[in-house]
């Protein structure tokens, strides 16, 4: 039999989150500063792509984070559905817009990179196309979360959608790759190029860590804000019910 310990839970979490948030914030600043310095000033330009290759230091980590966040949403959703843990629901709700933002950033940088490389703002490159579909999955998830007056129902529906989505992502990715090889002329330069110079690895790694801590920071802020919003709702309910 379940105990009602869940009611005490958010407060413990609030304390922990409050302790972690400044650490996440400062490490974000540190890692991003170091990563950007190395990336922009202290790494070689690509012999083929020239200076535009520096776009990669933002593009690649955003794309990673976009995928990582979706998995995060799906895992939190599964935990929320199976153990009915409210914090897991809140984590899924907090993660999805952040993931969508990363996804959008990856698409934007991809497009900016594409202009000098391909001579056009958008090419139906396999990676960009998959990212675009991922963005739609995020938007669907967020839309569903906001489509119900009943919060619990919204969370449950969005959780099921996230699980359906995560099963489908590999299939979509694979079919887009397949479609792309069918239609793409082989001469186009691929975004990541054949090999990465070791001097490019360090800034890339630092940026990736910085993006991750940034995500942790924002997610914690958003979860705390959700909890507070829920408290306000509880107070309102009390008002209504006297």
């Amino acid at each position, binding site marked *: 039999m379940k105990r009602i310990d869940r009611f005490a839970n958010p407060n413990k979490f609030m304390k922990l989150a409050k302790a972690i948030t400044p650490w996440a914030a400062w490490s974000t600043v540190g890692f991003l500063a170091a990563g950007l310095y190395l990336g922009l000033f202290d790494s070689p330009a690509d012999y083929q792509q020239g200076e535009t290759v520096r776009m990669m230091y933002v593009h690649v980590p955003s794309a990673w984070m976009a995928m990582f966040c979706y998995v995060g949403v799906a895992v939190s959703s599964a935990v929320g559905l199976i153990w009915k843990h409210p914090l897991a629901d809140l984590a899924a709700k907090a993660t999805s817009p952040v993931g969508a933002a990363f996804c959008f950033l990856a698409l934007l940088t991809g497009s900016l990179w594409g202009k000098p490389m391909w001579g056009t703002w958008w090419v139906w490159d396999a990676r960009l196309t998959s990212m675009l579909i991922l963005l739609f999955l995020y938007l669907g998830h967020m839309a569903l979360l906001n489509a119900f007056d009943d919060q619990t129902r919204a969370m449950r529906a969005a959780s099921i959608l996230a699980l359906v989505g995560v099963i489908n992502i590999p299939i979509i990715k694979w079919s887009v790759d397949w479609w792309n090889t069918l239609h793409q002329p082989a001469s186009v330069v691929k975004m990541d190029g054949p090999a990465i110079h070791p001097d490019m690895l360090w800034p890339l790694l630092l940026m990736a860590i910085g993006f991750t801590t940034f995500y942790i920071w924002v997610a914690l*802020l958003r979860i705390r804000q959700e909890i507070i919003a829920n408290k306000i709702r509880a107070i309102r309910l009390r008002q209504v019910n006297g």
Partner: protein
Amino acid sequence: MTNFSGHNLTCLRGERLVFKGLDFSIEAGDALVLIGPNGSGKSSLLRMLAGLLKPYGGDMTWDSESVGEEPEQHRGRLHYVGHHDCVKAVLTVEENLTFWARMHDKNVDAEAKVASALDTLSISHLADVPGRFLSAGQKRRANLARIMAADAPLWLLDEPITALDKESITKLERTMADHRQNGGMIVLSTHSEITLENPKILDLADFAIGFGEGFYDDDEEDLVF
């Protein structure tokens, strides 16, 4: 003797705790009447007994077997009448009822059972009428005929006499008495008078939660950083 009981049931709707620590126990032939003010969880309890709503805490047993472990078996032994009458506009009353009778028990002689159920509530003349021509009261009677058209020991009735006239209420009362005579059980919620022979009463106000209790209990908190 068949026994259906719940122990320490807790109901959570959205973020609101509706009732807590609710116990009940009924046996073959019993009728349990749920009373309580609006929002005290009468409908929620009925939906919980039907299995539509999972109890947040506590458990229910049927002859000391847990209901949650055999949900399909439990659904086979109950009939539920909710706020909607589920009469399809383009199907005749008979088609509507035969479908539900068969879905409930595929071996039932649906035609005969439906005919006799319609007769009991005196709506035989509506058998061939499509649902869209029915009045609210006729729809309600058709819905009540549905639960007579396939046998199930447990009837869960949420405000069953809404939209019914006096005469129909009397017929329903007689049917419920017959059902109990044959070893059936009835749980029903009502705002108005229904005559039942020595019913058990469950007042949900006894298990209500002060609205002070909830998820996010206080502790001053501010959002810095």
